[in-house]
């Protein structure tokens, strides 16, 4: 995967995004702190690109996805979609609620949990046509026909429109979730851990379907996953998060061939073997696992980093473009640049 | 048999046997204490001062502890109380009481005329917050004392330790009833130092009453029981019963307690023959007294429909009062047609009054011929509109509650749509006291009075119990005239005339008089409850196992 020079404007631009959840304590509900779920992340996605967002559980991937789509009130940062600013917290700029609702047509999300993402009291037809009707894309009857069509594309029978979510298996529900997002013919789609809750044999079905859809509808995609091995071949570029911050961004190739950040390295080495024959040198992380409510000062990873220096404990590392398109936030990289570190 | 004899003898009463140390009390009686257990449906309030207690349940206890100057017997004849005898002056304005000389307060102090004076002056004071100050308003000098410009009532003359003369501004016909019988005398030495405004807060004093009566308070447990022990020094003789315990009971379960021997005696407002059979089968004695009281339907005279006398008479005909008495009272009572009961001296006699015998046809006839109503297809119309009325009635008295529904049904028979509203007693009284034109139309209420015939408060213009707001100049004149004599013989014709007028005019619809029952365990002897006194001769009551 070669790195393309940025000529056209990216479809989605995220700059300095922050999302803190306040912690209330006691009955007086006094705010005693923040869970810094997303703490200053920046990236962009070009049209037609698939960006993978990886990181361990709780590192803020979902929160980032939701905040970008303006489903959560942002704490800071700026998001631009197709050149239109959704919000710019620092400049106190915000798109109107009405315009936002209109724009939702173009940016859709598929959720992690196939069991919780479908309203159990609605039948599939209603679920699939709800958004279409809201945006007045089709008349009721047409909308239903379109829904049936989509169901078939997604590998379900058209008669499913009369059924209710509980009558489907997890994999089938996930297909419905994808169909719902596709029904609006969006430009950007956020897939939040599409396969995490599914069985092994179903995972590949969904992954295949999703990829087909991306190609078919030429979608720009933000693909969220906790599993580096999944995103490896699926995504054009990968963004690795740790505790609310981006630690490394690059093309999949860059990241897998030359992981720069110690965390990325650990993550890569922790991927289980594909065959018993593989011989891997494991980087076993030690040390305390911090929480987003109380992140360590300096580099957030320093508590578990075997290379951590004094500086890492004090100073937040800045983004460094180690090679074109490969950005990493690590003091070590700064010190001994590029090749000599590798 | 009307009863307007006697009782006006100025020096009434016989001197009862002096209260010597007839009995050395129960000291000798190693045997069991004689305890009488009475049921009371509600708790006394703890205001054991007769000038403050305004509820039956406290009075029930105060009556054993405190006494008044005079009492009446079963026939409303005056009897000596604290006063042995009394005489009336020429102009009937001054009455001189000669007190018994051997009476002691239960703390040992002698009872004297000063206590009487103190009590009456106590009630005259502006800061007296009890409800009975009207009783003494007629005494000369009341206004000065009330406004605190004088210390003593000039109308009271303490002649000597045991003689006191009381003078009223006018002839005060209700003297015996209000001042003589109505005021329980309290001890000067107890209450003297207490500022009047604070009396109701002197719990300590209120709950440790010092009286002259046959019993002394021993223990008061609010909402549970009150224990009284005999006063060995009681001037009419040491009571035979050692102790009376008056305990709060649930009326629904009191019967069981009586039968279970947890109680010896209860007072019951209504009984049915089945109950009586149960009691009698169990060997209990069921006594009944016709009360000097009546149930009636208050009529708002400001209502255009109801202010019409023909309409009121038609209502009286329409209500099946005989039926109410027969079924709701099981015959223990009688239909009332005027304000006085048949046994009262002021009752004009059956012949003199209309009995409004149940007759719905007649009611309809009156309404359509005289009052301008139209009765059509079972509905009564006035000017083309069907007649609709509302009756409010208080909860708490089963017979009365039943009567309301009977009235509703009877009214339906003459085409009147009567709406019923059950309210709590206190709510009803507050509605009635507002004296508004339109806050009610009809209301059911009971009313009782003592041994005196004066009914100015009930039917006199502006009377405090005249909830109908009835006003009749002739009646008002007669009421004034009735007060000008102390002699019931002289007064009787006047009140009879009033009663006759009321029977015709119907300021309220008189419904019925009723009997109250006392159920007594056979082991309790000598009980003789009268219309006027529950504890008649209580010192002679005895318990024989």
């Amino acid at each position, binding site marked *: 995967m070669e790195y393309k020079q940025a000529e056209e404007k990216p479809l989605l631009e995220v700059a300095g995004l922050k999302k803190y959840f306040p912690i209330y304590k006691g009955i007086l*509900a006094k705010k005693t702190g923040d869970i810094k779920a997303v703490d200053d992340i920046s990236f962009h996605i070009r049209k037609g690109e698939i960006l993978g967002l990886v990181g361990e559980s709780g590192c803020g991937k979902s929160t980032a996805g*939701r905040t970008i789509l303006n*489903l959560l009130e942002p704490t800071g940062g700026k998001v631009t979609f197709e050149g239109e600013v959704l919000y710019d917290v620092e400049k106190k700029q915000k798109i109107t609620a009405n315009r936002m*609702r209109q724009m*939702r*047509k173009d*940016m*859709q*999300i598929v*959720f*992690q949990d196939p069991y*919780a*993402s*479908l*309203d*159990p*009291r609605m*039948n*599939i037809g209603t679920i699939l046509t*709800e*958004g279409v009707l*809201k*945006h007045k894309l089709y008349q009721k009857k047409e909308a239903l026909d379109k829904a049936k069509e989509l169901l078939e594309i997604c590998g379900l029978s058209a*008669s*499913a429109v*009369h*059924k*209710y979510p*509980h*009558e489907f298996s997890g994999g089938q529900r996930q297909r419905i*979730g994808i169909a*719902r997002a596709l029904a*609006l013919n969006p430009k950007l789609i956020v897939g939040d851990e599409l396969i995490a809750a599914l069985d092994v044999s179903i995972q590949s079905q969904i992954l295949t379907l999703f990829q087909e859809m991306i190609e078919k509808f030429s979608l720009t995609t933000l693909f969220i996953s906790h599993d580096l091995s999944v995103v490896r071949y699926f995504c054009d570029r990968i963004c690795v998060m740790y505790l609310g911050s981006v630690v490394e961004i690059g093309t999949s190739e860059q990241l897998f061939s030359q992981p720069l950040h110690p965390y990325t390295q650990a993550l890569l080495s922790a991927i289980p073997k594909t065959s018993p024959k593989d011989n891997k040198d494991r980087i076993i992380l030690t040390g305390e696992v911090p929480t987003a409510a109380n992140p360590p000062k300096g580099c957030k990873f320093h508590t578990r980093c075997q290379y951590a220096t004094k500086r890492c404990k004090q100073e937040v590392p800045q983004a460094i473009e180690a090679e074109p398109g490969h950005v990493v936030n690590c003091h070590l990289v700064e010190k001994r640049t590029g090749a000599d570190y590798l | 048999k009307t009863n307007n004899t006697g009782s006006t003898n100025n020096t009434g009463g016989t001197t009862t046997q002096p209260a010597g140390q007839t009995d050395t009390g129960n000291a000798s009686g190693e045997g069991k204490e004689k305890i009488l257990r009475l049921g009371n449906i509600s708790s006394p309030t703890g205001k054991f001062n007769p000038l403050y207690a305004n509820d039956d349940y406290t009075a029930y206890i105060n009556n054993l502890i405190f006494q008044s100057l005079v009492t009446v017997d079963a026939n409303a004849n005056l009897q000596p109380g604290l006063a042995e005898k009394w005489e009336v002056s020429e102009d009937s304005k001054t009455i001189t009481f000669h007190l018994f000389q051997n009476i002691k307060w239960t703390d040992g102090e002698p009872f004297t005329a000063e206590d009487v004076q103190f009590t009456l002056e106590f009630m005259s004071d502006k800061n007296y917050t009890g409800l009975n100050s009207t009783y003494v308003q007629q005494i000369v000098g009341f206004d000065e004392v009330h406004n605190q410009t004088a210390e003593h009532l000039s109308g009271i003359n303490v002649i000597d330790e045991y003689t006191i003369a009381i003078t009223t501004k006018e002839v005060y016909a209700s003297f015996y009833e209000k001042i003589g019988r109505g005021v329980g005398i309290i001890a000067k030495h107890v209450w003297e130092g207490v500022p009047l405004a604070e009396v109701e807060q002197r719990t300590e004093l209120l709950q440790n009453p010092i009286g002259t009566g046959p019993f002394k308070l021993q223990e008061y447990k609010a909402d549970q029981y009150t224990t009284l022990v005999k006063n060995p020094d009681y001037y009419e003789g040491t009571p035979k019963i050692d102790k009376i315990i008056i305990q709060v009971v649930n*009326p*629904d*379960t009191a*019967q069981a307690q009586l039968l279970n021997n947890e109680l010896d005696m209860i007072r019951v407002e209504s009984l*049915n023959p*089945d*109950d009586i059979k149960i009691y009698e089968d169990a060997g209990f004695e069921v006594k009944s007294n016709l009360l000097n009281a009546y149930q009636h339907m208050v009529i708002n005279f400001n209502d255009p429909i109801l202010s019409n006398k023909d309409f009121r008479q038609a209502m009286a005909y329409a209500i099946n009062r005989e*039926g*109410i008495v*027969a*079924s*709701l009272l099981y015959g223990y009572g009688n239909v009332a047609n005027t304000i006085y009961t048949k046994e009262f001296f002021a009752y004009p006699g059956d012949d003199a009054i209309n009995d409004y015998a149940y007759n719905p046809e007649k009611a309809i006839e009156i309404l359509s011929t005289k009052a301008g109503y139209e009765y059509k297809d079972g509905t009564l119309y006035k000017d083309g509109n069907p007649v609709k009325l509302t009756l409010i009635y208080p*909860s*708490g008295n*089963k017979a009365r509650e039943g009567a*309301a*529904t*009977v009235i*509703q*049904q009877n009214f339906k028979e003459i085409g009147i749509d009567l709406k*019923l*509203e*059950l*309210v*709590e007693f*206190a*709510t009803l009284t507050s509605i009635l006291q507002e004296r508004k034109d339109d806050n009610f139309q009809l209301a059911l209420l009971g009313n009782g009075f003592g041994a005196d015939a004066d009914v100015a408060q009930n039917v006199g213009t502006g009377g405090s119990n005249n909830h109908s707001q009835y006003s009749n100049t002739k009646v008002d004149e007669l009421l004034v005239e009735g007060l000008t004599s102390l002699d019931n013989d002289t007064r009787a014709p006047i009140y009879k005339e009033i009663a006759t007028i009321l029977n015709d005019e119907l300021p309220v619809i008189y419904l019925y008089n009723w009997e109250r029952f006392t159920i007594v365990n056979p082991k309790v002897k000598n009980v003789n409850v009268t219309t006027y006194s529950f504890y008649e001769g209580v010192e002679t009551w005895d318990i024989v196992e």
Partner: protein
Amino acid sequence: MAEKKQQENGTSLFKVGMKRLKKDKLAVFGLTVIIIFTLAAIFAPFIAKYDPAVQDLLNTYQPPSKEHWLGTDELGRDVFTRLLYGGRVSLSVGLISTGISALFGVFLGAAAGYFGKAVDGIIMRITDIFMCFPFYVIAITVAAIWGSGIWNIMLISGFLNWTNICRIVRAEVLSLRQREYIEAAKALGMNDFEIILKHILPNTFALVIVYSTLGIAKGILSEAGLSYLGLGVTPPQASWGNMLAAAQSLRTLSLYWWLWIPAGTAVFITILSINFFGDGLRDAFDAKMN
């Protein structure tokens, strides 16, 4: 065949719940009884031979006979008739008071849960306040002061009992709000109003029904209790509560069984049935079991 049809139409959770409910014998029994009683109450005028308020003072305290199936009361009224009409009153007291509390509870609970923050804070404090009120004390005070007609009883019961439903709905909405399908609806461009209406409230519905069902029982019992204190539905209107209350003396208990056994049994069977049914509903529609 049947299976095919079902497949085409799909089975909503409601249908699944109903299916489960049908298997619950106690619940079916409860529902049957409730339906029978309700029908009897509705069609009282056609079933009863007498007028519930008409008295026959010559025939008081008649034991059951051919004319009077359940005898007559202290005013000679037909007890069976009054029982039917009493059912009307008692059931409607239960129903309407619960309706009031459900309306309040759902509205406030949904608002508190969905909007959170200050709205939630204020509503929850109000709930706290109402939760602390001693029910009977306030009820008798209000009934005594403002009178105790059937409407007042409904209002009192309704206004004092909404807190439970409010809290339950709030908790449910709080958890619903976190569900991904709500977020999905938002992502589709739905506004708050549509989300509450289409996604949140329908999903609290089962819960509200279950608790309301149990609330009806509570309403009927409260009316009976207030009647015992003389503050229930005003006579001559019959309610099971005041029929029972009228028979509270021990004399009645021992001599005139027909004055209290039928009314007592009616209350008891009704409440029991409602509870059976409510329990069944809860089991059948419990979200956890879905």
